[in-house]
């Protein structure tokens, strides 16, 4: 049988193949880098909210506990955004004529809704539960950062699956006594990892890494 020879016209493929071999890895690296850019995964995403509510003022300066407004965080999957009624608990007495509070007063009076923009958004096929984390000693700060220093809230953490799994595989450095979950700037004396390990042992914290833990 005669030896098979590629026809002449296939010669022109050579340069394309070479280009692909050289360019392919570059393309993949570029894609990878683009995909993990903070802008792509939205780190620092800070939309303009209808009311410029300042966590720095309310939490940082005035010392409100997170749960004063986010009341459902220990009972529900959602740390629900407070209704206008919560704002008016204080603002019927304080800064009653502030211009920036006008939308809140209007919503409260008209029983209408305020349309806040969602900052921390995981895909809909991810079922995150706040209560499961907060009652087990994962501080708010671990995912949301120093809320007490944010004039307007921005996304602090990556919120990617790898980031979730980092903690689920090794929770110790992220744990604290459950009564201190809302403390900002938590910095215990001694080895943080060792303390976390004790808390995990005491509270039998053994985070699952099954698909169905988050995907249902």
């Amino acid at each position, binding site marked *: 049988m005669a030896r098979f020879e590629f026809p002449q016209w296939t010669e022109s493929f050579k340069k394309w193949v070479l280009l692909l071999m050289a360019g392919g890895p570059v393309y993949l690296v570029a894609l990878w880098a683009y995909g993990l850019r903070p802008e792509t995964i939205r780190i620092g995403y800070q939309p303009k909210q209808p009311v410029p509510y300042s966590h720095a003022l309310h939490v940082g300066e005035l010392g409100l506990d997170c749960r004063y407004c986010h009341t459902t965080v220990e009972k*529900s999957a959602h740390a629900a955004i407070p*209704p206008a009624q919560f704002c008016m608990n204080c603002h019927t007495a304080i800064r009653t004529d502030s211009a920036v509070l006008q939308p809140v007063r209007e919503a409260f009076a008209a029983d209408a*809704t305020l349309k806040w923009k*969602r900052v921390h958004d995981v*895909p809909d096929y991810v079922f995150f539960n706040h209560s499961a984390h907060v009652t087990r000693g994962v501080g708010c700060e671990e995912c949301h950062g120093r809320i007490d220093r944010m004039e307007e809230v921005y996304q602090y953490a990556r919120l990617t699956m790898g980031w979730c799994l980092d903690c689920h595989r090794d929770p110790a450095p992220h744990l604290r006594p459950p009564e201190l979950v809302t403390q900002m700037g938590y910095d215990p004396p001694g080895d943080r990892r060792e303390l976390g390990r004790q808390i995990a042992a005491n509270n039998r914290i053994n985070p699952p890494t099954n698909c*169905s833990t988050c*995907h249902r």
Partner: protein
Amino acid sequence: MSSLNPKDGKNGDTTWRGLSDLVAQAKSEADGVEDAGDPAVTAYLEQRVPDHDELFGDPLSRRRFIQIMGASIALSSAGLSACRWEEDHIVPESHRPEGYIPGVPKRYATAMELGGTAYGLVVTAYDGRPIKVDGNADHPHTGRGSTAFVQASLLELYDPDRSRAVERHEGTNSLPATWTSFEEEIRGLVKKLGQSGEGLRVLSEATTSPTVAALRRDFLARFAGARWHEYEPLSRDNERAGTRMAFGRAMRPHLNLVGAKVIAAFDADLLGDHPESLRLSRDFAAGRDPDDNAAGMNRLYAVESAFSITGATCDHRLPLRSELIKPFLIALEAKLGGTGAAAPSMAAFDAKAQKFLNVLAGDLVQNRGRAVVAVGARQPADVHALAARINSVLASDSTITYTADPDGDRPTHTEDIVQLVADMQRGAVSTLLILGGNPVYDAPADLGMAAALAKVATSIHLSSYSDETSAACTWHLPRAHYLESWGDARTFDGTYTLGQPILEPIFGGRSAIDVMKLFLGKGDVPTEQLVRETFEAAAKELPTGQTTGDTAWRRALHDGYVARSAAQGEKPAIQPFTLAPLGATQSKARVSNGSLEVVFTSNTATFDGRFANNAWLQEVPDFLTKMTWDNAALISPRTAADLGVAHEEIAEISLGGRKMQIVVYVMPGQAPLSIALALGQGRKRAGRVGGLDSEGVGSVGFDTYQVRSSKAPFIATGASIDGTGKKYRLSLTVDHYNLEERGQQAIAERLPDLVKEEDVEAYKKPGYSIVADAHTPEIATLTVPRTADEANESLYKEHRYDGHRWGMTTDLSKCTGCNACIIACQAENNVPVVGKEQVWRNREMHWLRIDRYFKGDPDDPQIARQPILCQQCENAPCEQVCPVGATLHSDEGLNDMAYNRCVGTRYCLNNCPYRVRRFNFLRWDWYKEIDDPRAKVRSLLFNPEVTVRSRGVMEKCTFCVQRIQNVKIQAKNAGRPIEDGEITTACQDACPTGAIVFGDINDKRSKVAALRLGPRAYNMLAELNTRPRNAFLARIRNPHPELG
């Protein structure tokens, strides 16, 4: 058809799925397995593999498909908002209601009415929208479990085709109308009618609502000349009339199956369409447990024309024409030594029937006091009277009680509508208010309802859909769903049950109470107040202690019912009565074409037609026929052969001068010479699912009301059937995955290993083992591994389960095949509906199916059943072949599906020996493309705890992992262990007989762990060493020794 001859013996013990199996087996026997076989058989088998043209070539079917998507379609935001760059909003209320925690579902008790009976329910609402309906476990009558209709009623709430506006018709013109203009109209009408109200009529569907009854009393007092009519196409009036014959007044028989040893059901679907089916199923199943039942198992006999799920569950069944039930009962009474009529000639019964009669009579006598006879609603009145007399002969005081009929003096529904239509035709009716129902569609065909309606000056129709009747009336009013309105009802035993709205009417509908009160000038009184006033008046007469005031009202609303409010049981004495003489055909075993019997049955999909637009119900395969999206004329294999009509052939049925065409379904076990016609399909104005002429959407199935007359509305004789030669394609799920002949034969050989059955006598012998079965290969792992050592080594990676180990048992002794679990699963897990075409292409999406097998003689087979869901194998074949790691094992042993990883190779499906995986071939959220703002309401239906899947994604049963996770989180938050029974799956909640048990196998005290170690437990295909987490409990039958 010779291979189907019962005498031929070959098929005597064979288990088969449908007649096509038998044909294929017989052919391969005859031709030798190497032969390709009969071209007809090959063509039959091959037709199930769709080609490209079928899939993509037909634009019309695609359009129809889009229209059908009236139901479960993907949440519009679900797929897209996964995209990070989309701006999303959080919109909190300005005032949060007290006790409301966003994202935590709440449960409310409420009530649903269906055809003159009611169910006490619990509704799960997620942020204010109902997403699941279940039986109220605390309710003394409904209890835990539900029916398919109850489960599917949720879909109707979000049906975009439900009526949205008041309509006013003048001739063929539509005039603008609103509720306000209707209220004005009523004020004018009431003034015009004056005190007498002459010419004012109400036609109501049967309702048990005490508030409607109170308003009706006020209404008839206010308008002296008015009359109230009631009509239901499927009514139990024959039972009322029969008890009136037997006892002198209308009574309701209530069977008490808990203590019954011998139960004989005559044309009675006790476990299916009976208004008490939930309680009866529960009580029946309690007497079917061979392990936990000191008194021994009960024995169920069924004599019936069309297969019902009661007949499918029984120990002995005799297929018999419905008209022959009466001579059969007369003969039975004579055998029991009753003092009634003289024994009739036995000419109508063959040797088999006579033997059945003798054995049954002997068994009944032997179990006097613990035996009971029940007769189905469609049998004539004197048969009911006869049954009452037989029960008194049997001293069935403990197995049957009677309560007074709540409205014993009214005429029968048929008489009532005949009277009303006659009055309408002679012009005596000027104003007709129709509360619910759809009489233009479902009134007897001989009356001419539509023509009569044209003679009524003002006709007002209140209904959920603008349907056939609405179009013929001058006014149509949109009706509020039961989850949108205040109401009350009495369950079949009389328990006072309250209904509360879960949400405001989505489409501005109002309830019957809301409309009635307009006529009484009470338009400003809130309906809640009316319901409460009735409750307080009724509660005063109850021995329940504190009955009035806010506390009692709130208590009753919370519970959903009033304790100890059921009707008092009575033991009325039998009075002498005479039976109507037997007709000519009632003493003949064989009748000719032209004297055939037609039996009108309720429809397991649409009930009487009212659920025709409910895609969940339309698509759920009927348990016995495995038919979806259709109804058919069921005839027996032998009759089909005799009369020369074929399966899936269009035939013409003539009955009493009326003709209709309908597809023939050759149904094994159907009584010879009897045709069963299910009512409730062929709707012309149901909606875009069930049929809507005005938008070019063809009807689903055939309108059998066309041949139903007021003279013989349930059992008619004198019918003829003639084949037309035209073929019609049914979408049957039973023919799916047919193999070529060798495969079919292998299936037949293995079926007894898959669905295990045993007689109780053999089972009770010492040393009995479910694996020591002649059919079963001797492999130790066929049973659930009792110890770790017993488990075989595997080639797959072994897993350790130190924490939870979720498992399930499915008791085949208790499953009746009622289909409630399938729809419960659909509602819980956002399972889409795919339409008739796609079902035909094997693409149904149900995560849970109930396999049905026939056994033995095609003209009188037994039935075996097996609910199949993902078996959650510990050594899962599916996991090994996924190239992208989309299906992975969890450390609790679940086969997790990560939908967002799935790329749709379908390898897992091919490697699954149980065939439980489902693939989204198409996008079921196409409605976005048809740009119909009306469709938006559907997105409210979805369970937010479960991902809505898109095209190209594999899915399957997850053991309701969302429920597992949520209970785990709750328990962990509270720092407590999970209790046994705390996690339930949706199918388990829906099961009225408790056939499904779920729990942690590692918890040695759990119910499921104990059941899996029981003597009946076996794993399906255990020889593959997949180690399924679901174990079946073999079905134990209790046959009479003489009938075998």
